């Protein structure tokens, strides 16, 4: 990747982070850690991989994103707002009464959200059904599925992985966000998932491991998946929970955080200062 492209993707990731802080600032709390960890992946996905039309969110030929770790909705909303799916001002309505931007992704509420998620594990099976259906429809689309490492505790994730490999869903790309933490603490202390890359390989995925906060590495890994084929793809992303905002990164517990408006404002200004 050339320096200019890298700069563009890093800048978009930064804008996504600024956008999600706009959401948390307005509400005062939210799932900030796991939203920040996938901002780089969302930047690369929407800027270099996915085919979509913000003016026509239900365009059948679009590529689809299933954010199975549905609590990272605020990251996806910021991305969609920046891409023009809905006004940026909407970001201030996160979790407000009657909002179209709920904590967890809802395909019936938010323009651009392709699948409803939130009960962990369920997005994996839904994505498999979508990938199976897209293939039956004869479309050359891809389904991108973001799964959390804490979410990998759920048995349904592995049922879905078996299905994806058995049905040869080469149009499915699973991005495993290994940020090492879940709500109660470190994943290895709660229910150690061990080597998720080895597990996904064993389950029949074409698997690569990357620095999930490096847009260049993500780009290379995602470009490979254009080839399709008989195996589903897995990209094991080593990330930092809270990535990009030191005050969140360094917090012991950062799955969901509550902070005064001024704190969110300070964090947001730190990022805005990096824009130029």
């Amino acid at each position, binding site marked *: 990747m050339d320096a200019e492209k890298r700069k563009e993707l890093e800048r978009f990731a930064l804008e996504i982070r600024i956008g999600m802080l706009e959401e948390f600032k307005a509400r005062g709390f939210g799932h900030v850690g796991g939203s920040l960890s996938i901002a780089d992946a969302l930047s690369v996905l929407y800027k270099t991989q996915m085919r979509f039309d913000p003016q026509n969110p239900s365009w059948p030929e679009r590529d689809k994103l299933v954010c199975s770790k549905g609590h990272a909705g605020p990251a996806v909303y910021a991305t969609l707002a920046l891409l023009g799916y809905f006004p940026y001002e909407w970001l201030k309505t996160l979790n407000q009464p009657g909002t179209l931007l709920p904590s967890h992704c809802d395909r019936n509420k938010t323009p651009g959200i392709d699948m409803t998620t939130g009960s962990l*594990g369920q997005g994996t099976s839904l994505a498999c*059904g979508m990938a199976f259906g897209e293939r039956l429809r004869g479309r050359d689309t891809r389904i991108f599925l973001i799964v959390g490492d804490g979410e990998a505790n759920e048995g349904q994730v592995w049922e879905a992985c078996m*299905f994806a490999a058995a049905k040869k869903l080469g149009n499915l790309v699973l991005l495993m966000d290994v940020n090492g933490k879940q709500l109660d603490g470190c994943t290895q202390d709660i229910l150690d998932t061990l080597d998720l890359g080895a597990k996904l390989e064993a389950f029949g995925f074409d698997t690569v491991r990357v620095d999930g906060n490096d847009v260049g590495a993500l780009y290379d890994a995602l470009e490979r998946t254009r080839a399709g084929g008989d195996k589903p793809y897995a990209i094991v992303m080593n990330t930092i929970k809270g990535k990009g905002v030191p005050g969140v990164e360094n917090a012991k517990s950062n799955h969901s955080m509550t902070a005064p408006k001024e704190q969110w404002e300070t964090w947001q200004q730190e990022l805005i200062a990096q824009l130029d």
Partner: protein
Amino acid sequence: MKIVYDGSMESRAFKNVLGETILQLAAEDPDVIYLDADLMSCIGTCQWSMENPTRGVNCGISEANMIGVAGGLAATGFKPIVHTFGPFASRRVFDQVFLSAGYAKNDITVIGTDPGVCAAFNGGTHMPFEDIALYRTVPTATIIDITDVNMLISVLRQCKDMPGVKYIRVGRKFAAKVFADGEQTPIGPAIPLKEGTDAVVFASGIMVHEAMQAAEQLEEDGVSTAVVNIFTIKPLDIETVKKYAKQTGVVVVAENHNRVGGLYSAVCEALARDMCARVDVVAVNDEYGEVGPQDYLQQRFGLTAEHIVETVKGLL
């Protein structure tokens, strides 16, 4: 509607008709996809699915995943029809049905076979007395307890094109023939099978046959008893329930289900406001299932015509 009930059994087993109808719908409608969790052989769809693996999808023994896959297919414009045994089609996948299908507005049809005592020799682990109760709490779900094979064909044809979550519970063996071949049974309206003035029995599933036998006995004993087949448990035909309750003042609900949360509960909820009748129930008395032949289990759990007769008389 032409009723042909005379107490005799259907010549066709549910399992054969179910399998044949699913394949027929798949042949007619390219958007129909049938999914199963390693129980295709139980309804005769295995060979076809092996030959048509994109139309008959064996998901293996992973029901939760199967419901999610069905939801994803629905989101892609397909009309998934899912089959497994009743307990796995309800208890085991409740959250997936509730969220991945219902809440997410992914329209699917779920068929749970061998409801209640029909699970017979598979025993207590496979014997759902609570599937209706669970599905009743899924907002706007449609719940059908099948009476005979003709109704099964008619209902399946309607369900595939209906929005929302549709749950069909049906046995795999033989049932008494109630409706004329080719007769349509529109989802929703309850079906009066026999008129009467002293009491009414609201029955579903295998209890329809028991209710008809009970009504015959009751007539002999001088009790004029109506029988209404409430096969659509949700949305309940409240008007018909109220009409017969007011007309007779004595209501007995007969169902192959726990008395908690099923048709009895639905009828009581419908009648509570007006309190226009005395109501009792012939159902499983808040127990777990057990193994045995179906006729033994119907005796064991009190699901027979004799129990209906006693219960009606108890209210008079």
